[in-house]
C-alpha cells in the first residue's frame, strides 16, 4: 500500500500515537464522556469495550477530530488536535484511516472510486490509483467487486470495502468503529481476520471498538500466518503483547490494561460484563 507522503512519526518520535487527557464531552446538557484519560503507544491495538450508548463511537470521533471535546486535551502523533481547526486537521487525517460503524461508503460511487477516494483527491494518476485499489481490494479479498456499487454489496462486503478504503494510503493509525457490528458470526470472523492481518503485516497502531467480547479475545489470542494466509491461535495459549483493553461504562473508564489484567480482574461489574 502507498505510504503517506509525510512521515508523521518523525515529528514527535517518542510521543504516544493517541493521548487523551481528562477529556469530557456532552450533548444537550447530558455528559457522554467524563474525564477520559488513556494512551495508545506505537504499534499497540487498543480494544474499546462497553455497553451500547456508553460513548465508544463519540470517543472514536474525538480521536479523529470529527468532534471537539468540551474540556481536556487530545494529542494524536504528539500534536494537540483539540486546538486545531478543520483545515489543519485535514493534514493530520492523511495519516489516519477510519472504518465507520455502518461502513459509510459513498452511495453514488463504485467500489473502485470509494477505495480510491483519497487518491483521487490527491490527484494521483488514474493508472497508479487503479493499481493501488486492486492491491487494497486483494488484501480484503474483494478484488472481484471492484466495479460494483455499494447497494450491490452485502453488509460484510461493505465493511471489507471500508477497510480497503481506510488502509489504501497505509495510515499510521487506524480507527475501527464497530467493524463487526450487525454481522453474522462467520462474517465477523472474516473481518476480525482482516484486522489481525493488517495488525501483524503492517504493525499499524489501531483503536478498535467492539461490543462482541469474543471478537476482542480472538484479536488478543490469534496471529496472522503469512505462510498459510490465515489467522491461527498464538501457540501455547499465547497472548498478543500489543493488545490493550479499555472498558467504558456510562461515559467513564472502568478498566484499562492488558489482556491478562482483564481476565484476572476482580471487579464485579467487569466480571459480569465479560460473562
Amino acid at each position, binding site marked *: 500500500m502507498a505510504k503517506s507522503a509525510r512521515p508523521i512519526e518523525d515529528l514527535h518520535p517518542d510521543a504516544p500515537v493517541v493521548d487523551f487527557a481528562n477529556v469530557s464531552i456532552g450533548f444537550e446538557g447530558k455528559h457522554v464522556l467524563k474525564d477520559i484519560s488513556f494512551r495508545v503507544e506505537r504499534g499497540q491495538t487498543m480494544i474499546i469495550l462497553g455497553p451500547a450508548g456508553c460513548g465508544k463511537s463519540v470517543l472514536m470521533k474525538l480521536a479523529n477530530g470529527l468532534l471537539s471535546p468540551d474540556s481536556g486535551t487530545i494529542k494524536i502523533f504528539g500534536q494537540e488536535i483539540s486546538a486545531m481547526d*478543520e483545515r489543519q486537521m485535514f493534514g493530520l*487525517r492523511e495519516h489516519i484511516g477510519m472504518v465507520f460503524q455502518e461502513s459509510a*461508503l459513498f452511495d453514488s460511487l463504485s467500489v473502485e472510486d470509494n477505495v480510491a477516494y483519497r487518491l483521487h483527491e490527491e490527484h494521483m494518476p488514474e493508472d497508479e490509483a487503479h493499481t493501488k485499489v486492486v492491491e487494497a481490494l486483494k488484501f480484503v479479498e474483494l478484488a472481484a467487486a471492484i466495479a460494483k456499487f455499494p447497494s450491490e454489496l452485502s453488509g460484510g462486503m461493505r465493511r471489507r470495502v471500508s477497510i480497503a478504503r481506510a488502509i489504501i494510503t497505509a495510515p499510521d493509525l487506524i480507527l475501527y468503529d464497530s467493524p463487526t457490528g450487525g454481522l453474522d458470526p462467520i462474517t465477523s470472523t472474516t473481518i476480525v481476520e482482516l484486522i489481525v492481518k493488517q495488525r501483524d503485516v503492517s504493525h499499524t497502531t489501531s483503536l478498535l471498538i467492539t461490543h462482541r467480547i469474543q471478537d476482542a479475545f480472538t484479536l488478543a489470542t490469534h496471529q496472522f500466518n503469512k505462510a498459510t494466509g490465515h489467522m491461527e491461535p498464538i501457540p501455547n495459549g499465547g497472548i498478543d503483547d500489543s493488545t490493550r483493553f479499555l472498558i467504558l461504562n456510562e461515559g467513564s473508564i472502568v478498566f484499562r490494561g492488558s489482556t491478562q489484567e482483564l481476565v484476572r480482574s476482580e471487579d464485579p461489574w467487569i466480571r459480569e460484563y465479560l460473562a
Partner: protein
Amino acid sequence: MPFLNIESFAKKQVAGVQDYSLLAGRAVANLFTAPRYWSEIWSQMDSIGVGSMPIVILTGFFTGCVLALQSATALKEFGAVNKTGGLVALSMVKELGPVLTGLMVSGRNASGMASELGSMKVTEQIDAMRALGTDPIRKLVAPRLFATVFMLFFLTIISDAVGIAGGALVSTTLIGLPWSSYIADSYDKLLYGDVVAGMTKPLFSGFIIATVGCYFGLKTTGGTQGVGKATTEAVVVSSVFIIVVDFLVTRLMIGIFGS
C-alpha cells in the same frame, strides 16, 4: 413533546442563524479559492438547470396564458385590451417570472439538496468525507451554490420568454389581439430598469435555495425521519425567504430606478 422555555428557544434560533451564516459565508469563500470541484459543478448545473427546465417552462407558459386572459378581461372594461402585451410582459419580467421560477426550483432542488445531504449525514458519509480529508462545504455546498445561482438566472429568462409567448398565444387566438400589437406594446412598456430588477432577483433566490437546502441537509439528525423533516423545512424556509427577499429587492429597485 416537552415545552422549550423561552431562553432555550431563543438560544436555539440564534445558534441556527449563526450556523447558517457560517455555512453560507464559507461556501461563498470556497468559490474563490482552490481546490474547486468542476465535475461536481457541471453535474449540479445539469441537475439543477437542465433538470428544472420542464417545470419552469410549463409554469412560465401557463402563467403567461392566465395573465393575458385575466388582464384582457379587466382591460376590456376600460377599452384598453391592446395594453395586454405590456401588462403581461411587465408582470412576467418584474415579478412573476423570477418569483415563480424561484419557488418551483426551490420545491424541486432545495428539497433534493436537503434529502441528499441529509441522507449522507445520517449514514455518516459526511463524517467519512471529513475523515478522508475533504471539506464537505467545498465539495458539496459550494458547487450547488454556484450552479443554482448561475442556472436560476437563465431559467428565469426562459420563464419570462415563454410567459410572454404564452400571453401572446392567448391574446392572438382567444382575445383576437393582433400579434404585432401585443409584441409592440410589450416592447414599449419594458424599460431597462424593469429588466435589471427582474434579473437581480434570481441571484438572491438561487443563493437562498442552495444555502437553505444544504444547511438543513447538513444539520439533519434522527435517521430517515430526520431526513423527511429536513426536506420539508428546507422547502418551507427557502420559499418564505424567496418571497420576503423579493419584497426587499423590489423596494430597493424602486429606490434605484424609481418605478
